């Protein structure tokens, strides 16, 4: 009896898959759409990234890509983007385990409401989350003013304009996404396995560590991949918080395109760099998750 697959990225049942080209034909419209909407702009972006903005006739060069590594500001922006996204992906994947587990396994009063509240931030744009951050943890935010009324000192004042505030805002954004991604995976988990483990005398923690965790491991990986990719590309929060001496690569792209003097070549190179990292991470983690599947099958 194979264990039911729990990754969203793969078909729900690997047994009984047939090799045939018919599905490919059915996917043709989608493929054509992808070609038109994704590949054409990508090709344009790639072309743009290989030309010098100041001398477009000078021919193809990797100068723009080298510039990202060479200019300290851009290099820092890339590294900060990676660090932030990794921290947020790890944090939100870890934090969402409990609510996702709760939602799949238990019925309790207010569950629907709680779920609604939790998934609300997903509908916000980054800028809205940024404004919320300013209102809550700005210089005269709600939290510091409340703490001042208790302690006489405006504790946490202005944290919203610092790195912790940014991480908090991103977590607020990603935890719902992570919870929903994981919840759908947990829902497919075969509870009979746990019952079997329980009847064999395994305790709570043992059941979680030896039965549940290995089974949902692929789902955790894909949750990590999704939150990482989304974090890597979003910058609306930072646009509002305007953290001093701090920047992220997507914000640099935005600035290059929108705050003249613009350098479209560098902006395109930055975009493709981000895209490649996001795609490679997603693909790599899914491969890893897929291997996890097979190991348990």
């Amino acid at each position, binding site marked *: 009896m194979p264990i039911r697959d729990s990754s969203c990225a793969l078909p729900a049942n690997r047994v009984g898959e047939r090799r045939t080209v018919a599905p490919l034909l059915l996917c043709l419209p989608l493929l054509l759409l992808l070609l038109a909407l994704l590949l054409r702009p990508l090709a344009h972006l790639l072309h743009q990234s290989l030309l010098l903005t100041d001398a477009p006739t000078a021919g193809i060069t990797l100068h723009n890509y080298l510039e990202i590594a060479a200019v300290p500001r851009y290099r820092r922006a890339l590294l900060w983007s990676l660090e932030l996204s990794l921290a947020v992906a790890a944090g939100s994947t870890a934090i969402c385990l409990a609510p996702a587990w709760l939602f799949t396994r238990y019925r309790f009063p207010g569950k629907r409401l709680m779920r609604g509240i939790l998934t609300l931030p997903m509908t916000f744009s980054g800028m809205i989350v940024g404004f919320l951050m*300013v209102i809550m943890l700005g210089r005269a935010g709600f939290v510091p003013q409340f703490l001042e009324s208790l302690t006489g000192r405006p504790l946490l004042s202005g944290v919203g304009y610092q790195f912790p505030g940014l991480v908090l805002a991103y977590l607020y954004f990603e935890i719902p996404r992570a919870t929903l991604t994981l919840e759908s995976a947990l829902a497919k988990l075969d509870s009979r396995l746990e019952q079997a483990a329980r009847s064999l005398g395994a305790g709570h923690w043992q059941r979680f560590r030896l039965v549940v965790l290995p089974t949902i491991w692929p789902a955790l990986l894909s949750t990590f991949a999704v939150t990482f990719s989304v974090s890597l590309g979003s910058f609306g929060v930072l646009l509002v918080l305007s953290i001093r001496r701090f920047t992220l690569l997507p914000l640099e792209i935005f600035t290059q*395109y929108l705050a003249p003097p613009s350098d479209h070549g560098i902006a395109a190179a930055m975009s493709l760099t981000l895209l490649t990292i996001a795609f490679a991470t997603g693909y790599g983690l899914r491969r890893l998750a897929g291997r996890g599947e097979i190991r348990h099958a």
Partner: protein
Amino acid sequence: MKPNRIVKFLAAALLVAVPVLAAQTTVIQYDCIPNYANWGGVTKAYQQKTGVVVPPDMKGSSPSMAALEAERNNPKADCVYYSGAIGYQAATKGLHDHYKPKGWDKIPAGLKDPNGAWWTVHTGHIAILVNTAALKGKPIPRSFADLLNPIYKGMVVYDDPRFNGTGFTFVAGISSVLGGKDLTAGFDYLKKLDANILKYNKDNIYNELLRGEVPIWINADGNGLKAKHVDKGSIEVVIPAEGTITMPLVMALVKGAPHKEEARKYLDWLLGSEAQSLMAESFFQPVMPVKLSPELQAKFPPKSAYAKAKVIPLDRMAAQADEIKKRWEKEIDGGR
């Protein structure tokens, strides 16, 4: 609802919506921030008068120019508003049509392009806007030099000059105000000021000034006066002791505007006495000679406060715009 009821409902909704939408003409103005120079009030009055909608647009001066450049072959905007230097720069890039709106002759020379590539609608001055309640007993800063006092640490804000024209005008002009020959004196000052800066905002923070989230905002005097007199905030508008920078705010018709005729009518109206008075009610100096009520006139700072105001030629600021923004990014915004 049964399916046929849904169909009936949708049909009714369509019947109502189509004439409403069809009757609605729009004019797109880039850089139409409701809380800046009372654009919210001005566009509302225009809609009430003509039915033409001018939707808000939150782009600052430089992003507006960038958008026009990007859309050069397929323009989306009809008209555009900027702080003078950026508008001048956009005109040199050939992004504007030539148009001389009604009342053109009354605009003083120097505040318009002789061929109608841009013209001033009103002027403001760079001022120190202070939320006195948020100072919590600290003295009100009276000069640019006062702002360097460490007691204001984490309280001072000015707009990111790469995005907002008002921030750009301040960064480009501060050197002249402090008596510098070139930009060096200004950048030296900005580096010192950085120690007290809370953030370099890219969005509009009018409401944050009102709420006291931002205690000190270097911005246009008119926005502070509106916060004080119209929105009744605990706001004081300080014209700095060293002097200030006069900032023309300019408009232009976009080259290839999709609603050209409607845009021309709107641009004409903006120079008429009604719109000019509305702009004056938000304390930007109207460019046309309109008669203001004595009560309103009394709320403006006295003429003497502006005695040391510097008028920096727009062509000079525009020519240096890219260099100034790059230098600010490098020296103030954390190096490159």
